[in-house]
């Protein structure tokens, strides 16, 4: 084994973690933004499409966005531990961790249960009440997107 091998191996681990971290962030943040664009089109939509979309959204949020968020968090923390240049006290790391924490908590405690409640109301024929719930959930989802965009800015610019 050459002298440079362990260093090369560390760099390879870091590069892999960075790729995983970025791919998961793209799926989570980009998907959340695009979901909002889809949701904006529902105001004049057929009730069956609204119900189908709400089911799709709950599936994506629970089975894709939340796992992606945990992958972003796990790979990010691993990179900070592994890379000599990064520290948990760095501003961009603090912003990133806070943003992931707030977004994940909001998704798990409010957004996903909210969409579930709206689906229940829609299937029991209480469309107007479901509309009120969906509007609140959308508002919270937009706030989460703003938080995530701040995190993206911090990761790119590293203030």
């Amino acid at each position, binding site marked *: 084994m050459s002298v440079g091998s362990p260093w090369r191996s560390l760099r390879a681990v870091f590069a892999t973690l960075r790729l995983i971290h970025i791919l998961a962030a793209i799926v989570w943040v980009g998907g959340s933004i695009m979901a909002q664009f889809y949701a904006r089109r529902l105001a004049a939509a057929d009730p*069956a499409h609204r119900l189908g979309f709400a089911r799709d959204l709950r599936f994506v949020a629970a089975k894709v966005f939340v796992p992606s968020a945990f992958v972003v968090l796990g790979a990010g923390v691993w990179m900070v531990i592994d890379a000599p240049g990064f520290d948990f006290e760095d501003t961009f790391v603090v912003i990133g961790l806070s943003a992931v924490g707030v977004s994940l908590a909001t998704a798990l405690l409010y957004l996903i249960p909210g969409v579930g409640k709206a689906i229940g109301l829609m299937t029991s024929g209480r469309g107007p009440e479901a509309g009120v719930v969906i509007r609140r959930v959308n508002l919270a989802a937009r706030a989460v997107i703003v938080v995530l965009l701040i995190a993206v800015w911090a990761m790119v610019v590293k203030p």
Partner: protein
Amino acid sequence: MSLVETYKLLHVLAAIVWVGGTVLALIFTWRALGATREHRLGLAADTLFLANRVFAPAAVIAALFGILMVLEVDAFSFSDIWIILGIGGLLLSMVLGMAFFGPQTTRLIAELTSNDPRAEGRLAIIAKVSTLDAAILVVVVWAMVTKPGL
């Protein structure tokens, strides 16, 4: 924030919307295979609308600021493998969007509206090509992040 940092932020934000949105649309398309006709129709119309108003502009913005960065940063060159892969993938995805997804989704909407049974097969083909498109974009992201050859 420096000029290059501004270019990089805009490039990254546009790429996030484009690639993340593509993955979301892919999941919606696969789920549409088991959905009601009304939901399929709504999704197809929404996706076609967003392709023209969000996906395509995001792709153009990502490409534009990527090119500006290559022009601005001395260490980057248009002959770098990772930049060739990035531009190649972007062009391939754009061609797929204009030559395949646009016309096929328009036909799908017409077939769903008239209850044409061919809609089922067309939706399945769109789902398969969407998977290929997402795979191309993942390769582009891999090239942009790992920068092979640099």
